[in-house]
């Protein structure tokens, strides 16, 4: 696959050319943080970031999305009949996302594209997307992607991988779609010295991630033994059920469906939802299978680290981005939870 050099002073013109042919999503600086958003001008993209506060999942699963529209006007023939909300599905480039987030999309695909059903919106957007990743020269102290099957320069799920070489980017096409993007670069092929610089950056970045977690052990653990473990009470003790972890997580896909009506026009919407909230599972009868906080905290970690593992044989539903570790207001750390869950003997009683 081809490799080209994009000098940094030519980045804006490269992004400008992409904008002529694609919808482009990129990291942007907003209100003291970085977010991954659709851009309309080349200079909005800022590739000097560490990571975005929210994951880029919104590019495929918007935080709020119109599914259907309808009228409830009395007497009209089409009243009460839902029809698809009009949408454009243009080809889109996700520029400069982190490799962990690209891997997350692959993990979420198994939920939305199954042998029985396909989520049409997720699938169409995924199909039309080209993922241009940016390797991490400086992983954060909360990063642990090397434990979850990825790495700071992992190509999993990407079409192009960018190396930040200081003065320039090295762009490597990983797939045919990626070749398409690389062809937008006017730069030359990298010489041997830049190639070896890229390799050194990669090795140095890997070495900076010290934490190694025994993730593989999770699949051998007995599901019910983990479920019934006493350690959940210690883990959940500080949790305030704010839902931030699920909000920032690139592999949290749960959603709610709600109808909204203004005068005679209505929409059926889907919105991000969270297993941290009691209403998520509340029955009409008042019964709630996850009424207690400890049950909800257990659900989140068991889903990521055991249910997903057992159901899909696809590893854990965590890519080690560390967002939940950074954002948790009470310092609950999924790395610690992994250690507790994989301890030789599950802690039973204090």
């Amino acid at each position, binding site marked *: 696959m081809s490799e080209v050099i994009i000098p940094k002073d030519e980045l804006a013109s490269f992004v400008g050319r992409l904008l002529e042919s694609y919808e482009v999503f990129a990291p942007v600086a907003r209100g003291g943080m970085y977010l991954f958003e659709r851009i309309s001008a080349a200079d909005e993209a800022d590739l000097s970031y560490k990571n975005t506060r929210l994951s880029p999942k919104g590019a495929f699963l918007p935080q709020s999305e119109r599914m259907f529209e309808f009228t409830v006007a009395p007497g009209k023939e089409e009243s009460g009949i839902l029809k698809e909300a009009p949408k454009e599905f243009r080809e889109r480039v996700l520029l400069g996302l982190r490799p962990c987030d690209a891997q997350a999309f692959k993990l979420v695909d198994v939920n939305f594209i199954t042998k029985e*059903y*396909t989520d049409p919106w997720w699938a169409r957007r995924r199909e039309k997307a080209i993922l241009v990743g940016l390797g991490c020269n400086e992983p954060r102290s909360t990063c642990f992607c090397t434990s979850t099957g990825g790495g700071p320069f992992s190509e999993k799920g990407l079409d192009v991988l960018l190396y930040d070489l200081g003065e320039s980017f090295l762009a490597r096409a990983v797939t045919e779609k990626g070749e398409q993007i690389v062809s937008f670069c006017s730069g030359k092929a990298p010489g041997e010295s830049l190639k070896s610089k890229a390799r050194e950056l990669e090795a140095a970045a890997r070495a900076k991630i010290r934490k190694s977690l025994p993730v593989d052990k999770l699949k051998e653990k007995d599901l019910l033994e983990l479920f019934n473990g006493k350690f959940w009470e210690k883990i959940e003790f500080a949790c305030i059920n704010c839902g931030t972890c699920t909000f920032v997580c690139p592999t949290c896909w749960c959603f709610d*469906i*709600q109808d909204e009506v203004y005068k005679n026009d209505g929409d059926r919407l889907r919105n991000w939802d969270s297993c941290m909230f009691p209403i*998520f599972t509340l029955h009409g009868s008042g019964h709630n*299978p996850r009424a207690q906080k400890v049950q909800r905290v257990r659900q989140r970690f068991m889903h990521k680290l055991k*249910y997903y593992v057992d159901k899909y044989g696809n590893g854990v539903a965590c890519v080690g981005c560390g967002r939940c570790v950074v954002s948790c207001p009470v310092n609950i750390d999924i790395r610690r939870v992994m250690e507790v869950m994989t301890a030789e003997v599950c802690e039973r009683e204090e």
Partner: protein
Amino acid sequence: MENPYLPSPVRIEEIITETTDGALKTFKLVFLKPEDEKRFRYLPGQFAEISVAGKGEVPIGIATSPTEEGFLKFTINKVGLVTTHLHNMHPGEIIGVRGPLGKSYPWDWFEGKNLVIIGGGFAFTTLRSSIVYVLHPDNRDRFGDLTVIYGARHPGLLLYKEELAAWEQRSDINMHITVDATDDPDWKYNVGFVPTITKEKAPSSENAYAIVCGPPIMIKFTLPILTELGFPPERVIMSLEMRMKCGIGMCGRCNIGTEYVCKDGPVFTLAQLNQMPNEY
């Protein structure tokens, strides 16, 4: 690409108030488009999302049997926003149906077996579907004896009263209708809780499957009696309820451990449930 979230429009043909407290009504629905009706192929035990534009959706067991063609019936308890709105609707109005969803009762396992159907309260809907299905002349020979134990708190809360009376008269079904209590001097069936009547009637577990559907308290006391009667957990079939949204295993809320009740269930054997976290 087919959109699994899009409800098919249906017209409310008839609304039948089932119970004396008025909390349960049966909605007879007819598809507006023949192609939607043709695509809606189901077996007893499956459910559908009933959609009301502007209100939302509710997952409801299908009360008709696939042997009844041309319409669907859903018996709906008045509980929340959508169901309360439905209870105030009238024949002729348009709503939506999305499905069929979930797994049916395991009809291929039941071939040549005796069936013991145990139901309580308003959970009788997919059991009614099953009884109608088994009693249909095309199907009756595929199954052995059919025993039904069905109870409600009092006679006014029994669903499908005319059908119950008709089934009582038939020789190819052993009906045991019961109520927890009644002061009706003309009541000619059993009085007692479902578990008690199950114990009293003692249906044989030989070559038999039990399908149990009802409120948690009924299930709790019925399961030990089925064990006493010799039903192994692999031959006790149950149907679960959960809060649902998508109905197709994607929105994430109805799981019990690795299983989504909407897609991997709602039908599970007791043996399966014994291996799953106790979180339902």
